[in-house]
């Protein structure tokens, strides 16, 4: 019995150290947890028990829900053409190219190559948002457009992850019906429910959201899909009521970041085999380039089409080449379901970590729009005030 407490102690200890390091150096705890997970997995090897797996999976679902709930529907509506085109290209270009590279050049089997494509098709709304806030671009039209496009990009990844590996049997269609009904009725019912329970100390709102997400995750997995798919969609349809309730976000984040996501990121990191990574550095470079080049070749011409200035176009392309959470979720899905090997997983996760860091640094160092470039985009649509 004491083994249970020792295991818990090890994981929570790693989570705490990650938080303290994050606090000290100002880098997101997710990235630090991934790195500490890698270090721990290759040294002390904390045991991955059933309950660790549950907390990690639930963490991924809640994290995906929170990401979905970050949708600013007004911005997407305003820049729907641009965000839809950029988002779809941002998803399909790296997905297709990385899939092709993995299958045709590296001889990975079809499903493993699709996982590689998915893991590298992502972008990161949160990573981009942090950069936008830092540069003051989050309030400008260009900033809002890029964020909306990133959102569409990630939606593509989540939908593909939810559909690519399913068998479309009876339970899948049952899941589709249940999810469709939930998505239709949830916004109205949730508003009604939140008014009724009114922030009671027993946290009925958080438990309500957990229940919905677990219910849909059950049907998704039963139908051969993935629990993060309904979580993202539920987040999207509840975004407006959720964003209006900052206290609820804070409470939900507190429980998620304290107990759930550390297990997800630490576990995702601990499964990385460093020996495999060092012996496959060439693959890391190939996949990094396949994602970055595909994003560039896809997004840059689209930017030209929308008459972005050269600098803004480079900046947009670089920002949309980032990725973190959904990249690791896709890779972990592949590993958990036996689609990719531990070595393939290790390479993909390291590439995902690199794509969170390198494009951001390049974009900030060389292509950050300054002065009038920040406001000039879509002046005809109302500029800053109109967004």
């Amino acid at each position: 019995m004491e083994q249970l407490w020792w295991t818990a102690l090890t994981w929570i200890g790693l989570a705490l150290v990650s938080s303290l390091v994050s606090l000290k150096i100002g880098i997101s705890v997710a990235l630090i947890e991934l790195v500490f997970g890698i270090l721990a997995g290759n040294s002390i090897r904390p045991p991955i028990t059933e309950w660790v797996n549950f907390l990690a999976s639930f963490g991924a679902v809640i994290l995906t829900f929170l990401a979905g709930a970050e949708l600013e529907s007004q911005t997407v509506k305003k820049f729907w053409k641009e965000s839809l085109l950029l988002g779809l290209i941002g998803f399909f270009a790296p997905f297709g190219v990385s899939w092709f590279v993995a299958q045709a050049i590296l001889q990975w089997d079809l499903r493993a190559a699709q996982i590689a494509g998915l893991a590298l098709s992502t972008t990161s709304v949160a990573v981009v948002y942090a950069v936008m806030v830092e540069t003051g671009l989050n309030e400008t039209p260009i900033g809002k457009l890029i964020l909306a496009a990133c959102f569409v990009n990630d939606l593509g990844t989540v939908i593909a992850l939810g559909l690519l590996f399913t068998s479309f049997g009876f339970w899948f269609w049952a899941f589709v019906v249940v999810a469709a009904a939930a998505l239709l009725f949830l916004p109205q019912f949730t508003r009604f429910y939140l008014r009724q329970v009114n922030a009671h100390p027993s946290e009925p709102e958080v438990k309500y959201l957990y229940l919905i997400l677990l219910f849909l995750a059950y049907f998704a997995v039963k139908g051969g899909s993935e629990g993060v798919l309904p979580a993202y969609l539920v987040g999207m349809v509840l975004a407006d009521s959720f964003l209006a309730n900052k206290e609820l976000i804070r409470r939900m984040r507190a429980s998620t970041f304290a107990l759930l996501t550390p297990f997800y990121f630490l576990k995702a990191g601990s499964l990385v085999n460093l020996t495999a990574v060092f012996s496959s550095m060439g693959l890391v470079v190939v996949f990094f380039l396949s994602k970055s080049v595909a994003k560039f070749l896809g997004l840059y011409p689209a930017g030209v089409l929308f008459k972005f200035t050269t600098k803004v176009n480079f900046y947009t392309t670089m920002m949309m080449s980032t990725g973190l959470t959904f990249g690791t979720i896709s890779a972990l899905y592949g590993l958990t379901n036996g689609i990719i090997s531990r070595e393939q997983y290790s390479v993909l996760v390291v590439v995902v970590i690199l794509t969170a860091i390198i494009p951001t640094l390049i974009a900030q160092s060389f292509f950050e729009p300054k002065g009038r470039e920040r406001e000039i985009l879509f002046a005809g649509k109302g500029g800053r005030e109109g967004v």
Partner: protein
Amino acid sequence: MFKKVLVAYDGSDGARLALGKAADIGRVAGAELHILAVGRIPEYAETVSEVEEAKEQATSFYSKIVEIAGRDLNQKGLRVATRIEFGKPGDVILRIAEETGADLIILGTKPHSPFEEGFSERRWTKSSTTRTAPCWL
């Protein structure tokens, strides 16, 4: 002489000393003072709400500090504007200096142990700002 002075201010002892010097310069030159506090937000965040929460915490921490500093200088008859921004202090200070057209940046420092001097963000802020500042520092 200086017309716009940007003071990077975090309420620390070194920053208060710098603010005093800025006030002296402002009085002599008749310059407008811009007090800037920079709150840190996590890089490579995992959710937008994580960034938002960091912003809220920084705002709640710095708003009083900056308000008191601004009020003190106002009472001394100086023209003062205050603002709180977010990000890496070095980058943000330079960006705001450009945006406001500041011709002098003043920021305080404090002694560190050799370890801290080597690794702390404060040192990085100082050196990166010194290297690329668009005006006097």
